[in-house]
């Protein structure tokens, strides 16, 4: 029994065809995977189904009847519900208010609260209706979105990269909920690029590449590598590190604590760690557990007590960012647009932004634009950044290219310590592989690299040690060799290293 049928959907934007003649069908009670890289056109496709984007050509039908939603409201009333990748939640509003906003005809506040409590308990996703959403963890925020969908008894539930913000334990809970829903007859369109999850959960998979359907398969009978090749278009090499030798300690944190920077931020609590030259130190954790705050405390955007952060034995906790760069510590924050780079400025100006100190791009405050342009050109060449010129605005670059530029900019400065937060978030597989290799090469040259990532596979792939960041606390590190997902799950759940080891 087919629920939703898509035929020949096409949507073009200036310079790119986001969806090109896409056809497939989702059956009733089926968990259907939509698999593809960033930029493959998954988001555009689901926005079309959800009424946010109108296709240039093609048609959809729902339960056999033509389906042309003009806006999300019409889509919702036809039984389509969606859990967004970047949550569409309102921090300052309560759970119940957030849920009411996503419903067509919400019941009275009191009835709604009762419904939220009962549905959330039924599906094993407990939630308190009166909590303010901004105070919730990423996993809980996702629950709000899911409950918001479930209260409307959807026929089709769209989930866009739902596990990127969850711990392994939370992923299991979510899968349980989704299976239960499918058994009750709800169809689920599950969007992801994580192959293991799709193999564990989904009945069918449609694979997109560059806006086109390039294949379909039954994920339970297809190997991950076969799906990966369909998704990427070629076989990828895994990054390799040449040597495992590490040198003396370069970066040391001693009881680093810092208050939450804003109302919905996370306080850092007594973080201690040591990183040696040549080491790749991986920090895993679900978003919102203090990653941004930790990077800020290391880069110098947040100042702490001097000896809380030491570089080669020197206290640097009170120094501003440029003094830390001069001392050899560089960083690449998570958000490319507007934090690691200024989107409206040219690549030359963005190169100058952090390269000024170490690359000697100014004298007495007067800027040397020639040198800055050369520096930008070097980054572009060495890291294969696809751009018309060094004068192109950063916002014109694709996510992967800009990320290569940002990480490349810091690597080119040959720092003693490099901090990177989510180095490959939202980046296509080829760019991700080259960024990871570049980080390993830097460590091979004797720099210490701290990789903060939600992508546990990434950490297992490139890091020597793993520590978990949870509610602003950092666990003791364990070697990544022989580390299992179960153990990582326990560490991320907040258990101490001993408990995890005994589990």
């Amino acid at each position, binding site marked *: 029994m087919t629920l939703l049928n898509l035929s020949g959907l096409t949507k073009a934007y200036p310079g790119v065809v986001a969806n090109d003649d896409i056809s497939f069908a989702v059956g009733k009670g089926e968990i259907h995977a939509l698999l593809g890289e960033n930029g493959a056109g998954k988001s555009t496709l689901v926005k079309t189904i959800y009424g946010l984007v109108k296709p240039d050509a093609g048609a959809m039908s729902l339960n056999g009847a033509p389906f042309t939603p003009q806006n*999300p409201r019409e889509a919702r009333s036809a039984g389509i519900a969606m859990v967004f990748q970047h949550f*569409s*939640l*309102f*921090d*300052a*509003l309560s759970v119940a208010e957030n849920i*009411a*906003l996503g419903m067509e005809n919400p019941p009275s506040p009191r009835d709604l609260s009762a419904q939220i409590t009962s549905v959330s308990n039924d599906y094993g996703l407990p939630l308190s209706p009166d909590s303010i959403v901004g105070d919730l963890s990423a996993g809980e925020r996702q629950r709000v979105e899911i409950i918001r969908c479930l209260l409307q008894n959807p026929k089709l539930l769209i989930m866009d990269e739902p596990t990127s913000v969850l711990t392994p334990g939370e992923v299991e809970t979510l899968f349980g909920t989704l299976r239960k829903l499918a058994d009750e007859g709800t169809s689920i369109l599950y969007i992801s690029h994580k192959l293991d999850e799709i193999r564990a959960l989904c009945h069918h998979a449609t694979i997109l590449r560059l806006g086109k359907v390039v294949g379909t398969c039954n994920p339970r009978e297809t190997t991950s590598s076969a799906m990966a090749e369909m998704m990427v278009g070629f076989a990828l090499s895994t990054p390799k590190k040449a040597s495992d030798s590490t040198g003396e300690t370069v970066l040391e944190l001693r009881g680093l604590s810092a208050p939450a920077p804003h109302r919905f931020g996370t306080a850092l609590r007594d973080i201690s760690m040591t990183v040696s030259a040549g080491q790749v130190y991986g920090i895993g954790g679900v978003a919102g557990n203090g990653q941004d705050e930790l990077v800020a405390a290391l880069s110098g955007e947040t100042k702490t007590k001097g000896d809380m952060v030491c570089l080669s034995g020197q206290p640097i906790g009170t120094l501003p960012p440029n003094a830390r760069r001069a001392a050899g510590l560089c960083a690449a924050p998570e958000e490319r647009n507007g934090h690691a780079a200024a989107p409206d400025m040219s690549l030359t100006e963005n190169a100058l932004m952090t390269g000024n100190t170490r690359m000697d791009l100014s004298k007495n405050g007067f800027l040397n634009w020639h040198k800055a342009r050369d520096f930008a050109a070097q980054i572009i060449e060495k890291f294969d950044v696809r751009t018309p010129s060094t004068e192109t605005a950063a916002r014109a670059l694709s996510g992967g290219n800009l990320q290569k530029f940002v990480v490349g900019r810091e690597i080119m400065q040959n720092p003693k310590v490099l901090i990177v937060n989510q180095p490959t978030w939202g980046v296509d597989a080829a760019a991700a592989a080259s960024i990871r290799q570049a980080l390993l090469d830097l460590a091979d040259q004797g720099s210490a690299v701290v990789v903060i990532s939600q992508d546990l596979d990434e950490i297992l792939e490139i890091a020597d040690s793993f520590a978990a960041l949870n509610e602003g606390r950092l666990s003791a590190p364990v070697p990544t060799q022989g580390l299992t997902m179960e153990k990582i799950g326990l560490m991320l759940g907040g258990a101490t290293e001993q408990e995890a080891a005994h589990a």
Partner: protein
Amino acid sequence: MDINPILILAALMVASTPILLAAIGELVVERAGVLNLGVEGMMIVGAVCGFIAGHNSGSMFMGFTGAALAGAAVSLIFAVLTQYLLTNQVATGLGLTMFGLGLSSLIGQSAVGTTDLSLPKLPIPLLSDIPFIGPILFQHDAIVYLSIGIVAGVWYFLSRTRAGLILRAVGENHGAAHALGYHVRLVRVGAIVFGGACAGLAGAYISLVRVPQWIDGITAGAGWIALAIVVFASWKPWRLIAGAYLFGGVTVLQLNLQADGTLALLDLIIIVVAALTIGYAIYRAIKTARFDVRDNIVPLSIIGIAALYALLRLLGMETIPVEYLSMLPYLATIAVLVGLRSGGAAASLGKTFHPSS
């Protein structure tokens, strides 16, 4: 001169009404995530149009209706520019103020003279007979009641209705509201026009009731004070009343001092304020078991100013030059802005929204 506290407090409510009206409109605008700095401009256009409409038709009702329509019409310029042509809200708001000042002066060239219209007092039966409170609270004209009614209505709308929830959601995160299918721009345009109409009413209250005549630049910064009061009230409707009456109080006080000539009233007020401030500072120091100068800068400066005043009085100061007294409302605005550090602004306040981004 005899100072009658009942008259002063009743005058205070009248003096506060324009600020309250303008502020409640702006509060809704800001809760929708838009910062309109053109309140002063919309107010003064409302003032001149209200005056002319009232004067020519001979009806107060027509005057206020005309003012609200005029305020809404100029606010529409702001709405189109910021919401559809994506201009910077700060710059556009400033432009609106300048444009409004020029336009009002242009329109008002022929509208010189006073009006003999008057707004009848509407004592509320029974309540107005309560001694002391009755004459202060319940013997006012319709617009004073209306202003409080609008505050109550806005409170109900924002906290109890779905439309209010949507407006808050749009102000909080316009991207998410758009993703859920709400019309961010329409909601905002609606809020801006409501703000314009309220500012227009506020202006007309000045030109038709308070003064009552048309003079160039008649609003004299009341629109800006209304903006400050929105911040003071932490974007909460009921607190707006406290803020507006505080400023009305300062204005009335200043007028009385100017008329009075002696400093007896000021002495009394400064003693009370200083005592309250010292008490508050001590209470906080005991409660938190420590005293930090940085945290107590506001109480300390109030006490400092009081001490300076006391010194001047002891040295024989008998009067304050009248001309300096008119600074009081503006200085009070600054003091209140400084004393307040609580948040509560809509998270998207002042940010430009475009559906593609």
